[in-house]
Each structure stands twice: as C-alpha cells, then as structure tokens.
C-alpha cells in the first residue's frame, strides 16, 4: 500500500509539509464523524437493553445477550446469507475470470469499449435489474417458456436447476441474482491485474517452449491473484448483507437472510439493541473470514 516515490515528491516535501494534510482533513473528518462515530454508537446500542418493549428507547447496560441472541435466534439467517454469498462469489470468479482474460488479452484496442459495456448494468437500477430477472424467471416467463418448448424440463429438473418446474423462489435464483449483480465488481479488479502483466514475461515463457498451460499456471495466474483477491472482497462482503436478491428472487424460506432480519428489527420492530448485536456479529464473522482469507492469499494491495 506504500506510495512509490513520485518524481516531484521530494521537492514538494521541501516546499510545504502542511498542504497534503490540509487536503486530507475534510475527507478524514467526514469519515470520522459519519463512519467511525456511528459504528461506536452502534456498538453502544448493541450492549444496551430496551426497558419498554413498546418504546424504541434503550439504555446502555453491558447487555451481552444481544450477541448470543444473534446466534440462537438468527443462526439460520446467518448461515443462509453466508452460503448464498459464498456460492455467488465462487460463480463470479468462474464467470469473470475468463471474460477478464478475454478482454485483457484478446481484444486489443477494443478493450476499453468492452470494459465499458461491462459497466452498463451499473447505470440501470439494481432493483429494476433484479425485478427484470424476476419477470424473466417467473412461472409463465420467457425462460421457462423456452425450456418447455425445447423439452429440457426433465433434464434441468434432474440437474437440480429446476425445482418442481420452477426457477423463481429457489435458492438457485437468489444465487444467480447475486452473481449477476456483483459480477462487475469481480471482473474489473481481475481485469486490472491481468492488464498490468508485462507481456514480455508471457513471450519469454513461450520463447522458452513453455506450453500455454504452464505459462498460465506459473506466470499469468499468480500475477492475477491480487485481482481475484480484491474482487472476492468486493463481491463477498456486500453479498452477505444484501437482501434485495433474496427478497425478489427467493421464496419465503430464502427470504430469511441476515440483512432482511437486521432491517426489519430496526425499521419495523424498533428493537435497536438486538439488531445492533446482529450487525456486529455479521461484521465480526466477515472480518474473521477476510483475515483468514488474507492470510492464505497474502496480498498487500487492495486499492
């Protein structure tokens, strides 16, 4: 993460040491007040009790049971969220890697155009895209219509893609929706790391009679791992908290994910301490997983 020495850096240091700090202060102050302080306030409310269950107000009492409740009452929600997010992240890698590779190595001067096209879904509402999937996968929608017309229903049922002739309201629909919505977040970092690879290394491997599979395994893949790493974090973390896909594409069972539970505890049930406890449990699990993952993948450059 250390910044490389810029050409003019030393000189600038001589000119004025205060300027960079002045430039950094507004953003840092804003993040402190509206990111760090809210987290502290959430932490405090997660250790509070609610004296009157019909009033939203709560008092700080070192109430640890909000944390254990998160596991006992919402363990299933947590497990489901992590399973959906994990499956979607893996699928994202499987789909995004070849596409990123294709754009980086095969597309020459059209790279920027294709990369731009990958970004197009970003400019369409996340909710509308998910609702579009809902209408596509619906029982009388075009996807199932096509499956029926080519008589693939039985095979897909056997493969587990269809559930009693349905696509919508299944775990697979939720995972597919998550994969769809987070794909660009996986693709862009992988692309960036592939694009940075010095083509000379690949040519050198070929000159030394390395077959492509070996070049890929020993040169391209290791050098692209930082991208996979960054993409995994950018996909997995938001996907665990997401409940839009579960809400629109899942059935009543799939809809019971942790994000939805936190939101309804906050906004419908006004039980802030227990919702705050759940939020911190979610954060703690994610942080642990990220640390373990970082240990194995070991890369220092996320941004």
């Amino acid at each position, binding site marked *: 993460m250390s*910044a490389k*020495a*810029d*050409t*003019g*850096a030393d000189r*600038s240091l001589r000119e004025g040491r205060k*300027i*960079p*700090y002045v430039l*950094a202060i507004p*953003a*840092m102050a*804003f*993040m402190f007040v*509206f*990111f760090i302080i*809210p987290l502290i*306030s959430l932490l405090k*409310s997660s250790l509070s009790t609610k004296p009157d269950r019909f009033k939203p107000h709560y008092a700080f009492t070192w109430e640890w049971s909000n944390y254990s409740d998160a596991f006992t009452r919402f363990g299933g929600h947590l497990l489901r969220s992590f399973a959906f997010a994990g499956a979607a992240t893996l699928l994202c890698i499987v*789909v995004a890697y*070849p596409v990123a590779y*294709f754009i980086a190595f095969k597309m020459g*001067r059209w790279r*920027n*155009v294709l990369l*731009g096209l990958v*970004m*197009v*879904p*970003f400019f*369409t*509402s*996340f*909710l*509308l*895209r*998910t*609702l*579009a*999937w809902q*209408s*596509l996968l*619906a029982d009388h929608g075009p996807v199932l219509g096509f499956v029926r017309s080519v008589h693939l229903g039985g095979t897909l049922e056997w493969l587990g893609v269809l559930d009693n002739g349905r696509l919508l309201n299944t775990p697979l629909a939720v995972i597919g929706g998550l994969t769809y919505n987070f*794909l660009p977040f996986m693709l862009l970092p992988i692309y960036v790391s592939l694009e940075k690879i010095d083509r000379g290394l*690949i040519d050198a491997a070929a000159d030394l009679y390395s*077959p492509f599979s070996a070049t890929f395994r020993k040169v391209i893949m290791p050098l692209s791992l930082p991208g996979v790493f960054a993409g995994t974090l950018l996909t997995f*973390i938001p996907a665990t*908290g*997401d*409940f*839009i896909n579960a809400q629109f594409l899942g059935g009543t069972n799939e809809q019971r994910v942790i*994000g939805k539970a*936190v*939101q309804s505890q*906050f*906004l419908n049930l006004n039980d*802030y301490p227990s919702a705050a406890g759940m*939020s911190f449990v979610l954060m703690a699990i*994610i942080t642990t997983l990220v640390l373990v993952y970082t240990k194995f993948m070991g890369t220092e450059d996320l941004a």
Partner: protein
Amino acid sequence: MSARTNRAGRRPWGSYVLYGVAGLAFVYLFVPLFRIVQLSFNVQKGKKNTSWNGFTLDNWANAFKSSNYIDALKESLKVALWACSLATVIGALVAIAITRYKLKGGTFINLMLVIPLTTPEIVMGASLFTLFFNEGVSRGFWTIVIAHTMFCVSFVALTVKARIRGLDWSLEDAASDLGAGPLRTFRKITLPIITPGIAAAFLLSIALSIDDYIITSFVAGGVKTLPRQIFDGEKIELPAQVHVIASMIMFVAIAIILVSSIAGNRRKAHLG
C-alpha cells in the same frame, strides 16, 4: 504499447472456448437489460408492467407524466447532485494528498478509505441510524445526503487515486521553474491532468447514489428516493414509465461509454 506478438503454444480450441464463455457472459450481463427495454415498449395490463402483452410507443410518449415514481426520481437526482458534488470535492482532495505527496499517515488514510468498502451496507445503514436516533436528528433529505456522501467518498478517492497514480508530477515543477505561480500552475497543469479521473469518479458516484436502497432505507425517514419507491411500491404498481426511464438512462450511458472509449482509442493512436 507493446507490439502484438503471436504467442506460441496457444491452442485454437482453447481460444474458441474462451470466445464462447465470454460471449455467454455478455449475454448474461445484458439479458435483464434487454428485458427492461422490451418492457418499456409493452402494452401494460393492470398496475404492474411485468409480462409481455404487445408493442406500443405510448409509454415513451408519456415518459415523464407525473407519478410517485417521477417524484421519487427527482428526489434521487437532488440527493445525488448534493452528495456526489461534496464527495467528489473531498474525495479528490484526499486522493491528491496521498498520491502526490509522501505522507506520514498515508497508510492510515488509505485504511480509512478502504474499510467502508469492506463494510456491508446494512451495517453502515444501521450505524448511521443509531447515531441519528441517539442525537435526536430527524431523518430526511439531508441525512440521506450525508449517508450517500459518506459511501461515495471512498469510491471517489480510490478511483481518482488509481487514475492519477502514474502521472508525471514533474510537469508542475517545470511550470514553476518557468515562472508560473502556484495558482497558474494548478490551473494550467494540475487541473487538466487530474480532470478525467475526477470526472470518472463523479459519474461513478452518481450511479452509486441513485441506485442505493439499503443504506437509504435506514436514514430516509419519510423521503422516497427512486429505489425506495421501487422497493416499497413494486408489489402494488410498477408502471411501464419506470422501464422507459431506465432504458433512457441506459442508452445515454452506452452512448457516453462508446464515444469516450473510441475517442480514447483515437487519442492513443495519435500518440503512437
């Protein structure tokens, strides 16, 4: 740019598989977008525009007739303009600070910018909610602006940082050696080289702000942004108008992307 060399050992069938997978992935990316465009030309039956009944241009002719969705869109645009302008200014400044200068607290600043990206939205929404609740701040337009600014700052700062990392700052020194004052150096040298990165960051943050539902739902109070209106209203009514507006934005985005990337290619070709 390196010459396009032929890499030995590349199997043709591997290439075909790659082309196939990439093609399918692009189809996957665009299928729901085509669906949205298709539904924008749909004859709507009932309150929800979700299944295909036939072709019409009526929806496009009446794209902006007043409705809850148009009000919500206006609200979203207002939020995005405030939040993204603010986020772009302070995000770009901090990006310049950590890229341009050797800073002592650089690692810490970087960390402060990256952590929000690795925090689930639901946690950010919940924490802002408790802050506003504890301080007795009533939730509404300005709390949405604050929340959006907060999550856009990181994206802006990291985008600008990535864009200006490789720039040649010695041009600034050259300008001042030739007698340009600091203001003139900034206007003539610094501003032109950082502008493309900042513009890209601004556009990205607009897209993020207009699209946010989860954090907004915690801090909005009674204010309906477009995503909130869609989430709360789609069970009752989802007019074709929504699909028309989404299609318009999509077409404009595609046009901007194509023009800017082709222009970029031209520029590169000129420079050799």
